[in-house]
C-alpha cells in the first residue's frame, strides 16, 4: 500500500513513541529548558536525531533494492513511498537505534535518572 507524505510523518513519529528513553529525554528537556524557545530548539534537535537514527537503521536493514525504493520514495516522491517493505523486525531495530541515541545523550550529559526524573512505570493515582 502506498503511503502519502503525511503518512510518512506518522510512520516516523510512531517509532519509539513510548520507550523509557524517549520519555526520560522528553522529561529532561522539559525540566532543564530555561525558556520556551530553548525547549523548542532542543525538541527540534531530538526530533532530528530521531529521524536520522531511524532512517539509517531502516536503510541498514533493507536489501539494496529496497534501499533504493525507500530512499527514492522518501525523497523523490513521498506520495508513493511504499512503507510495507519495512517489516516489524526492521521497525524494531530502528526503534532500538533511536532509543540507543537518546540513551547516549542522557548518559553523556551525566543525567542521573533519579526517582524525580524517572518517568518509566505507572505513577499511582492520588
Amino acid at each position, binding site marked *: 500500500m502506498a503511503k*502519502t*507524505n*503525511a*503518512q*510518512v*510523518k*506518522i510512520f*516516523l*513519529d510512531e*517509532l*519509539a*513513541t*513510548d520507550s523509557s528513553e524517549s*520519555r526520560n529525554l*522528553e*522529561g*529532561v528537556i*522539559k*525540566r*532543564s*529548558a*530555561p525558556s*520556551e524557545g*530553548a*525547549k*523548542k530548539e*532542543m*525538541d*527540534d*534537535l*531530538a*526530533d*532530528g*536525531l530521531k*529521524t*536520522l537514527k531511524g*532512517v*539509517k537503521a531502516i*536503510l*541498514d536493514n533493507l536489501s539494496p533494492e529496497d*534501499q533504493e525504493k525507500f*530512499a*527514492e520514495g*522518501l*525523497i*523523490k516522491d*513521498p506520495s508513493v513511498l511504499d512503507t510495507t517493505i519495512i517489516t516489524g523486525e526492521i521497525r524494531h531495530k530502528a526503534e532500538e537505534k533511536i532509543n540507543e*541515541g537518546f540513551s547516549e*545523550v542522557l548518559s553523556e*550529559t551525566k*543525567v*542521573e535518572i533519579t526517582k*524525580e*526524573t524517572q518517568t518509566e*512505570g*505507572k*505513577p*499511582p*493515582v*492520588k
Partner: protein
Amino acid sequence: MPKPVQSEINSEDLRNKLKLKLLEAQKELFEKYPHFKKLLDEKNVDLLKLRQHASKVLTTSALTGTLLFSPPNLTSGVPVPSEIVKDISNLDESGVRSGASLQESLIKSLSNILPEKVGPLSRTQEKYLEQVFKNIIGVNARATLEGEHLNTTYGLIGLEQHLIRYPGDSVAYMAPGRGAWGYFAPSKSQLTPEDIEREKWYAVVQTLYLPDWESRLSYLRDWYKYRKVLIVNTVNGNAVVADIADSGPAMWTGKNFGGSPEVMQHLGGSRYTKGPVVLFFVDDPENKVPLGPVDYNNIKSLGVKMVEA
C-alpha cells in the same frame, strides 16, 4: 512553560550534546549512504525538515477537506450524514439504543467516522463526532470553540506524572517542574477542592505548536488555562472530562496529548500508558460539567462496563 527549576541538568550541555549526536548521526548516515545524500541534494530536500514539512501537509490536507466539504482520502470510511443522523436517532428519549449498549454504539460510530491512523480530522468528521458525543455521551463538545482549534483533535495520548500543586507539594511520581500554568495554588493552606480536582483530572495539549501561539500568547495562555476537554478513548469508548494544565508532549515523541494518572487510569485501566483518543473542547459556559469520568461509562444498568484498552 515551566520556569527553570533547580536541577543538576545543565541546559547548555544538553543542547550541545543533542547537537553533537545529531551531527554524528548525520555523518554516519551520509558516509554509509552517499547516494542517499546525493538524492537529497539533488532534490534540495532537508531530511531534518521532512517530518515538519509532512506535518504541514497533513494539516493542510485536513483543512482543504473542510473547505471543500470533501473528505480527504483518510475519510473514505465515513458514512454519509444521513446515516449518522439515522443511527443517532435510534436512541430513545433516555438515550438508550435497543439491543446495544451506549458504549457499543459509540465505538461503532467512532470506527465509522475515524480514519485508521491518528491525525488531523476534516471539519466534516469533527462535526459528525460532535453530534455523536452530544447524543451518546451527553457532553456538548466542540472541535473548534470560540474560534480556537488544536493542531489535531485525533491523536495519541500518553501518561503524564502528577503536577506540583503548590510550593513544597510532594507526592510520589510527581513531575520535577511546574506545569505550563504554574502552581494550582500559592500555598497548601490556599489549596481548594477545585484545585485538587484540576490536578487530578488534568490534560496536556500541544499549545506550544499552535501556529498563532506566539503572536497571540497573552490571549491564548488565558484561554487554554484549565480549559475543559472531553477525551474519548477511541478503542473502548471510555470518556473523561479533563482540564488543560500543561503544555506538551514534544512533537518528536509522536504523542499529541497527555493525561494525568487518573485520566489515563479511567481511559484504559491500570496498564494504559498510550493510545488513540479524540480530544474536543467542552462547551460549558456556565461551568456545570464536572471534571472526571463521564457518567455514561458508569451506567451499570445499561450493561456498560469499563473496558481495558
